[in-house]
């Protein structure tokens, strides 16, 4: 039954797109309304609750001392995860994550990591022995498509608002310096823009119905300088060279708009 409804809906979405329209009335390159609430979880070192249309993600940042990776003793640690909670959609089951969720978490992590948003060289307590670990954990609580961007915006907003405690290296152990908090060192604001391909149409920020009807998708992350720093193609169709060029241009243009909203959210906090 679900299959038949999906097929009918897909046909409807495609017919509308052929007339230049989307099922929810947006322009092809228009994102849904983005709302960002900073410091939604005060016990975290930084947090954000993000709604992108009806997709809702909460990201909490925890910052704590950790051992450095063996070959990176002069760099702090940054890890970003993403999880779909069972209450976010009836189709989500408990248990270990499947390939879709693993890909989601890795793509969100990669976009932020590759932009070098967090300056990890400033997060060293004692070289080769102890560094600061920054963990940005996303949980999706409501699903209406495009978790890639919702998680990315939530993590970015949470990191921008994060305060890191300070630790001193005393007697071979990191010791918390009371009352000495500072902003997490930030070098750039990465913004991911996910586009779906349905037929020959490229649409920005697909909702759940569009997501289920897509032939292929592409997520491109750009930084504050307008450079492209990460990309992931997914789905069972391909893109032509011209389409890839076009998606690159869209991602930088839309990314700049979203970046302003992320900055605004920080000011309002």
């Amino acid at each position, binding site marked *: 039954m679900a299959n038949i409804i999906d097929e009918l809906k897909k046909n409807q979405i495609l017919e509308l797109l052929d007339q230049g329209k989307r099922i929810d009335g947006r322009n092809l390159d228009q994102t849904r309304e983005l709302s960002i609430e900073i410091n939604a979880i005060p016990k975290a070192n930084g947090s954000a609750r993000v709604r992108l249309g009806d997709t809702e993600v909460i990201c909490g940042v925890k910052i704590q001392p950790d051992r450095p990776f063996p070959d990176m003793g002069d760099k702090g640690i940054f890890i970003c995860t993403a999880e779909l909670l069972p209450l976010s959609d009836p189709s989500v089951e408990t248990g270990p994550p499947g390939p*879709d969720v693993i890909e989601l978490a890795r793509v969100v992590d990669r976009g932020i990591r590759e932009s070098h948003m967090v300056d990890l060289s400033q997060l060293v307590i004692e070289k080769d022995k102890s560094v600061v670990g920054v963990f940005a954990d996303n949980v999706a609580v409501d699903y209406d498509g495009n978790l890639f961007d919702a998680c990315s915006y939530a993590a970015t907003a949470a990191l921008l608002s994060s305060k890191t405690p300070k630790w001193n290296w005393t007697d071979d152990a990191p010791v918390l310096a009371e009352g000495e908090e500072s902003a997490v060192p930030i070098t750039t604001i990465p913004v991911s823009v996910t586009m779906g391909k349905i037929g020959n149409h490229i649409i920005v920020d697909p909702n759940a119905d569009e997501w289920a009807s897509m032939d292929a998708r592409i997520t491109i992350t750009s930084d504050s300088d307008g450079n492209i*720093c990460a990309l992931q193609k997914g789905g069972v169709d391909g893109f032509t060279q011209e389409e890839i060029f076009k998606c690159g241009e869209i991602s930088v243009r839309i990314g700049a708009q979203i970046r302003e909203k992320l900055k605004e959210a920080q000011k309002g906090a």
Partner: protein
Amino acid sequence: MGGREATMVLLDENGIRCDGRKVDEPRRIMIRAGGLKNADGSAYIEFGDNKILVGVFGPRDVHPKHMANTDTGILRVRYHMEPFSVGERKNPAPSRREIEISKVIKEALEPAVMLDKFPRTAVDVFIEVLQADGGTRCAALTAASVALADAGIPMRDMVAAIAAGKVADTVILDVNNEEDQAGQADMPMGYMPNIGKITLLQLDGVLTPEEYKKCIEVGIDGCKKVYELQKQALNDKYFGNRD
């Protein structure tokens, strides 16, 4: 990228890379179609120091049965690295990285395979990385296409794959392990030359919009070179003098 500092010169003043290649020169590529007796189709590829074996089974019955689709066949891909394939022993259990790569390779192959020709069945592609040296997903995808063709699976095209990237502010073709770890960008790409579609594309590392376009162009050109070697491998097996 890996975030490690370059301990070697990635590109010297004459435009020569750390392994002696020119900027647009791929590593040595050897592809063999067939080779496994039990698999319905197989291929072996040496791509620089990468050594990868691919076996294809099917179309065959789907187990577990609930995975079967009455409208179309399904493609399943497992990308797996042997514990001895990398510097430090790798845990043989599938990592999150391997699960993601399995997924992107599957989605890169699907547009090429005519799955609708055999509903209710599965085609299984098993990729085993025997030795890894940067660029395994591209080498694996290239070999998997040949193995699918060797299995006689109906296909629209083969997917050829290679990475473009950036070292020392210069766009290069076919990123090796050192360049991946210490370079500025790595963009693995899979491309169907006859159809003109990019079916695998990833990027990590920072590129200006101009470099982004250049990487796509360099990658497509590289894929076309790889494609010739794929065809040659099939030609050698079915029309050549081997064995």
